[in-house]
């Protein structure tokens, strides 16, 4: 920030960064004028597509008979694999996913083609009438069955340090156990949608609700047999993403583009919600087996852990998701002697994909479960066991992937929350309550989060931006990040406004557009602001530098003496408004726009050995949650939540608070009410909000207190901030641990095997 103290004196105006500025689209959201892809006025001649879905989990595709569909009103035709002009395989990293199923189908819901019609409903009705001839083959739905059958999308990975066998063998205490954790549907409120417009000379314009326009561009070009420069992808905003529109949006855009290619008309494809559930990937369900040895304090002396990720039928992002699970098994704890075996299982279900936390939650939860179990086995408070295992500051501070934890604030952070939430006193109150309450039992848990920030694929950690200053002094920013509700555009706008010393109202962020910033990474890994915010800041800084040099030349001073603040520019001789300066500079032919580029420093990582420094820094937090369960029915309720979370120096506390609260509630949903049920035929029986229950207003506890940790990022990050998108999600593991704590109080043996999500049925089962 460049606003000098003397300018602030006597002025009520504050720099934009650090203020709880409202979302840049908030007024448009509430007025209904914020445009999502399905709201864009349709170009004349637009057709609509709907997918034809496999109704078998695995089989030989012997034939597709569209005759009945073709006779229906408004139907233009079908698009199948043979209509693909380019590569019939999607341009994914592993290159293992057909655009349309060809000779085989690999899950129930796999898209075999699309029907194209004049209206959406005509297309959807007709798609159901397309007859598929499929010879069913045995399918694998269950992840443990896949491990047995060695059915993998990618080879297993083992990370090992020390001698876990010996650690376990020599430990005074041992435990072994298993756990199954369910997946999660993203349930972005805006379903998947893409709109493909063929332009002149084989150029294409694609509107896509995507977290990764660059990848959509690449996939569409690849499918059409064109070079990337022929395809332009635009996304002003998504109605929610959560990882579900990182790769999954690409399929939709490709299908729409192929239909547009065949019929030479613009084609829009908006998935019906049920189809969205049936077609697209979700958070990976995981299964675990573990064996752990520990001392009298509960300190882990040896751990052997098997994690099996249910990846679905193709690799998609499962490799990096499973890697991140491996990286986050430690959560906040030092594991001296450990072996982690990670299986990436192929099953005949949707291809599971990115989802907020990206494997991190699935890695952490098993460690928290183990520590909870150790506490119960020793008759100790689980919090004391957790504390005994925390990473040290100067020793016991190297992760199992050989990264030194340099910014550890776990101990003071947990201590502060423990005190603020009155953990010990409530622990006693709850014990007293449970002793006399016949049906309702309460539970309490305080769990920490340590989450690594950066894409583990190091090359993704780069970003570009453009800052344009127009002749009237107004500023337009474009960067490679996408807006999915997380407030990225608002934060970038604040950063640019401060960099140029202008009010936020002078700055607008435009739609993400592959023709402006090329090769942009996905907006993912919580890194949107870290990367794009810095790139935009650097772009603005270059414009400012040119203006400062222009002023310095006129006022015979050094550029550093020129101050930009509050819409004014001052040198030693004169003060002028920003608009005056811009107008002068334009007429003196000063370049008023610039690009900016940023790449994250310090990170490196060896994919073969899974060692290095994959993360620039860690984000920390802790949550203390109290719950109640009904021992007659298993029904449960979250009663109180206290959170202390680390966002460094907040660029926008209102937005960060929104990410913490929203992430927590979404995590709570994952672990309580959101249950994905596939039957033994591989049919996803929960495929709409009528059967799949995300948290509603009534599930939010009245006592829901959030505090921010008052310390800047110790690494040089934009504005001293820390990433906030994903880490709070995992604070919700405290809900699940509290439920297990409550369940334990209702059991004579104090042991609890409880799979997630903790539906009433799963809780009741855990009581037996």
């Amino acid at each position, binding site marked *: 920030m460049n606003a000098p103290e003397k300018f602030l004196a006597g002025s009520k105006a504050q720099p934009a960064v650090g203020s709880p500025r409202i979302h840049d689209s*908030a007024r448009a959201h509430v007025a209904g004028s914020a445009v999502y892809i399905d709201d864009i006025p349709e170009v004349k001649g637009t057709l609509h597509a709907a997918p034809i879905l496999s109704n078998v989990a695995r089989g030989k595709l012997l034939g597709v008979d569209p005759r009945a569909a073709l006779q229906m009103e408004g139907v233009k035709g079908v698009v199948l694999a043979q209509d693909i002009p380019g590569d019939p395989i999607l341009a994914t990293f592993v290159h293992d996913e057909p655009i349309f199923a060809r000779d085989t189908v690999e899950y129930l819901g796999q898209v075999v083609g699309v029907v194209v019609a004049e209206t959406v409903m005509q297309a959807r009705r007709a798609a159901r009438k397309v007859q598929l001839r499929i010879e069913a083959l045995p399918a694998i739905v269950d992840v443990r069955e896949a491990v047995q059958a060695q059915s993998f999308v990618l080879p297993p990975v083992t990370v090992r340090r020390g001698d876990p066998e010996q650690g376990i063998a020599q430990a005074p205490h041992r435990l072994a156990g298993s756990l199954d954790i369910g997946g999660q549907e993203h349930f972005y409120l805006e379903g998947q949608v893409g709109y493909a417009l063929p332009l002149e000379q084989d150029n294409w314009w694609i509107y896509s609700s995507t977290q990764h326009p660059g990848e959509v561009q690449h996939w569409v070009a690849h499918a059409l047999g064109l070079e990337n420069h022929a395809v332009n992808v635009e996304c002003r905003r998504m109605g929610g993403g959560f990882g579900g529109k990182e790769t999954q949006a690409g399929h939709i855009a490709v299908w729409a583009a192929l239909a547009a290619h065949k019929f030479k008309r613009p084609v829009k494809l908006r998935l019906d919600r049920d189809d969205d559930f049936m077609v697209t990937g979700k958070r990976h369900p995981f299964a675990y087996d573990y064996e752990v040895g520990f001392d009298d304090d509960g300190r882990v002396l040896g751990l052997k852990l098997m994690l099996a990720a249910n990846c679905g039928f193709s690799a998609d992002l499962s490799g990096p998701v499973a890697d991140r699970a491996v990286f986050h098994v430690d959560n906040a704890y030092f594991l001296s002697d450990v072996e982690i075996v990670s299986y990436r299982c192929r099953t005949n279900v949707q291809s599971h994909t990115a989802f907020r936390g990206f494997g991190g939650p699935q890695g952490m939860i098993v460690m928290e479960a183990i520590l909870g179990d150790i506490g119960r086995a020793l008759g100790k408070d689980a919090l004391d066991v957790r504390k005994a295992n925390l990473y040290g500051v100067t020793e016991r501070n190297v992760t199992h992937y050989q990264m030194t934890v340099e910014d550890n604030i776990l101990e003071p952070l947990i201590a502060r929350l423990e005190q603020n939430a009155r953990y010990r006193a409530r622990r006693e109150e709850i014990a007293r309550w449970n002793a006399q309450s016949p*049906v309702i039992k309460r539970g309490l848990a305080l769990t920490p989060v340590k989450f690594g920030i950066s894409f583990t694929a190091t090359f993704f950690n780069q970003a570009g931006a453009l800052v344009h200053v127009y002749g009237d002094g107004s500023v337009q920013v474009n960067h490679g990040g996408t807006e999915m509700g997380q407030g990225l555009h608002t934060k970038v706008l604040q950063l640019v406004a401060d960099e140029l010393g202008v009010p936020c109202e002078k700055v607008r962020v435009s739609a993400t557009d592959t023709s402006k910033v090329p090769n942009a990474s996905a907006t993912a890994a919580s890194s949107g602001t870290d990367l794009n915010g810095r790139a935009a800041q650097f772009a603005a800084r270059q414009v400012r530098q040119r203006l400062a040099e222009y002023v310095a030349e006129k006022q015979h001073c050094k550029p550093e003496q020129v101050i930009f603040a509050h819409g004014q520019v001052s040198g030693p001789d004169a003060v002028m408004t920003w608009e005056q300066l811009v107008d002068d500079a334009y007429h003196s032919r000063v370049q008023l726009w610039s690009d900016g580029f940023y790449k994250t420093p310090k990170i490196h990582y060896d994919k073969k050995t899974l060692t290095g420094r994959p993360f620039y820094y860690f984000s920390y937090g802790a949550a203390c949650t109290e719950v109640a369960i009904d021992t007659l029915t298993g029904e449960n309720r979250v009663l109180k939540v206290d959170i202390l979370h680390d966002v460094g120096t907040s660029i926008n506390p209102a937005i960060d608070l929104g990410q913490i609260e929203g992430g927590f509630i979404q995590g709570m949903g994952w672990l309580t009410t959101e249950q994905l049920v596939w039957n033994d035929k591989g049919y996803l029986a929960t495929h709409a909000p*009528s059967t799949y229950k995300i948290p509603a207003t009534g599930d939010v506890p009245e006592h829901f207190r959030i505090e921010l940790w008052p310390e800047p990022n110790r690494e040089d990050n934009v504005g001293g901030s820390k990433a906030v998108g994903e880490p709070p999600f995992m604070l919700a593991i405290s809900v699940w641990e509290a439920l297990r704590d409550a369940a334990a109080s209702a059991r004579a043996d104090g042991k609890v095997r409880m799979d997630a999500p903790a539906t009433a049925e799963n809780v009741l089962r855990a009581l037996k």
Partner: protein
Amino acid sequence: MEAKTIRLVRRGELVSLANVPPDRTLLEVLREDLGATGTKEGCGEGDCGACTVVVAEPHEGSLRYQAINSCIRLAHSVDGMALWTVEDLVADDGSLHPAQEAMVQAHGSQCGFCTPGFVMSLFGMYQNHVCKGGTITRELAQEELSGNLCRCTGYRPILDAAAQMAKLPRVAVDEAAILAQLDQLAAKRGQVPASGTYLDPRSLPELLQLRALHPGAQLVAGCTDVGLWITKLHQQYRQVLDVTRVEELRRVEHYDNHIAIGAAASLTDAFEALVAQRPQLKTFANRFAGLPVRNSGTLGGNVANGSPIGDSMPLLIALGAHVVLLSVRGHRELPLEAFYTGYRKNVLAPDEVVAWIKVPRPQPGELLRAYKISKRYDDDISAVCLVVAMHLRDGVVAQVGIGAGGVAATPARALQTEAVLRGQPWTLETAQKATAALRSEFQPISDMRASSSYRSEVLGNLMQRFWLESQGHEQINLESFRLVEAATP
């Protein structure tokens, strides 16, 4: 057959829509025909609330406002009403309505896609509560927003906005002008034609005649189920017979020994009448779907569909309710449980309609509990529903009605369990016998909501809960559980 013109009042103007097919949804008309894309489709089945709009009708001299799901509501069903979408709340000078302004100030939107729906639910609340001098408590806001899902915010800021909007400068709807316009529309309307693609008779004789004339027409009420047959099962209906405008059937009539709920009374109104007599049902009523579904859906529709997991039937069966069926041939009355013949099958003849549901008034000393087990507390469908209504005389079970949902192909009466209880002293031993009887009486299926074994077990456990509650135990039911704690220092 002709499609009659839909006429409604929007932004103070009369809007006419000609040639709208009878099975076209209100959301399609808004987004595709009127270009009003502020209203969103999130799920197309009335479960997420992104498509919420507000309609109003004259009611006792003023307007009565209701938030509804436009995605499963037929466009013709709002003929003659006033309609507000999210765009309509913005004043001509661009200033925002308090429901919108409060959402902005409270940071209540993130991705913004659910926001128009929340704004409209807030607007409904604003008109029905704030403008009538009521206060917005957290409980009220949670109730009224129960049909709106948000995936970004975690709801806290939206609940804040609900409280905040009452404190902003008041914005009033010009009710007199709208009432005058609606009067004009009503006057234009004239006789219901004997044929047409969308038949919406205003009187019972008209309805019965049309039903006899057009037995093939799809009978609809609030369309909270039939709407999904259109959007999800892709059914098309060339002719629709809508019962919701029949004055006689919208009323709740009070008699000495029972109340008669008209089949076209909304679930909101029907539950209000039931709760007025039996206040302990309030929570159960609020947990039936979300508010927009209760505002559109009718008790008659719920009963006629007879879903085995519908929540009103177990209650009505336990209370000993009867249904009255009418046709031009006459009327017949039967106990509700006798209405069903199989999975979503009933005794209704092609020319008959469900007209009234007669619910006996409570007798002094009635022990009544309604239990619902679902994955989510609000706006979910029961895995198991159990309702027990018991009368004790000198400690002996004199009369008992038990209705169960989620345990058979139809809503069911637990006749065997009732027999086990009747005439027995109400003791722990009897309760245990009833528990065992309930578990063996039904063979529920396993599905995505729960397993068969869980359903059976919990059915019995709910009888235990009933026993405990009948003995005056408190704090044994999460529904009413409140955390009592020492004051925070």
